[in-house]
């Protein structure tokens, strides 16, 4: 099945990002396709490379970047990103800043769009 993913909450403060990541890992293991991950609302904060995380905890933005390196597109909403200080200078590798139209495309091309939010 083709899954599109929407992440609406920021890292650490909320479980949404972890749940989305774990869902994607499980879906890939089962042979499903991830059409893309769209970061909206505070979800955009998942994609800053300025995170500096203690060694005994997961590094959420690095984890997303590594997933992007595997070829899964990571799309960060430009309007939401601008509000929250996320720009190309601080963006993790393997992600891109783009418009809400990309979320619309994910809705259209995926069999299911799974939202991870509050």
């Amino acid at each position, binding site marked *: 099945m083709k899954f599109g993913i929407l992440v609406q909450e920021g890292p650490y403060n909320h479980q949404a990002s972890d749940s989305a990541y774990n869902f994607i890992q499980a879906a890939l293991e089962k042979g499903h396709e991830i059409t893309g991950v769209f970061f909206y609302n505070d979800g955009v904060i998942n994609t800053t490379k300025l995170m500096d995380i203690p060694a005994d905890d997961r590094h959420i933005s690095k984890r997303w970047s590594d997933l992007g390196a595997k070829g899964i597109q990571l799309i960060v909403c430009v309007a939401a990103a601008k509000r929250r200080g996320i720009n190309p200078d601080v963006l993790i590798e393997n992600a891109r800043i783009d418009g809400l139209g990309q979320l619309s495309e994910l809705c259209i091309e995926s069999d299911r769009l799974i939202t991870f*939010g509050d």
Partner: protein
Amino acid sequence: MPKKTKIAFLMRKAPHGTIYAYEGLEALLIFCSYEQSIVLVLMDDGVYALKKGQDTSELGTKEFSTTFRVLKDYGVERIIVDKTSLKERSLTKEDLLIDVEVLEAAEIMALMKEQDVILPF
């Protein structure tokens, strides 16, 4: 012509206090240009987004309630408000900025089942 994707925007949170309703509305406006089948459903505190006479000047936040007026012109097919949510807040259709369909929870549930995508805000 490819089949239109049926997308419901579900607004359940109060319009002020968090950014969900505002950013949900922003997303909704963009989605309108993609010519899919779009409906807006307001439930719980989400119904306050349509209340007449909002004034955010003392909050210092943007007042965006009037933007809901353009949605029908932008191609949103239906704007639906949950009957119980209105009643619980002592609101009636006359308190709202725009004309809406007021539906029972069971009718909204049936509508949700028809959707390809539900986007919660």
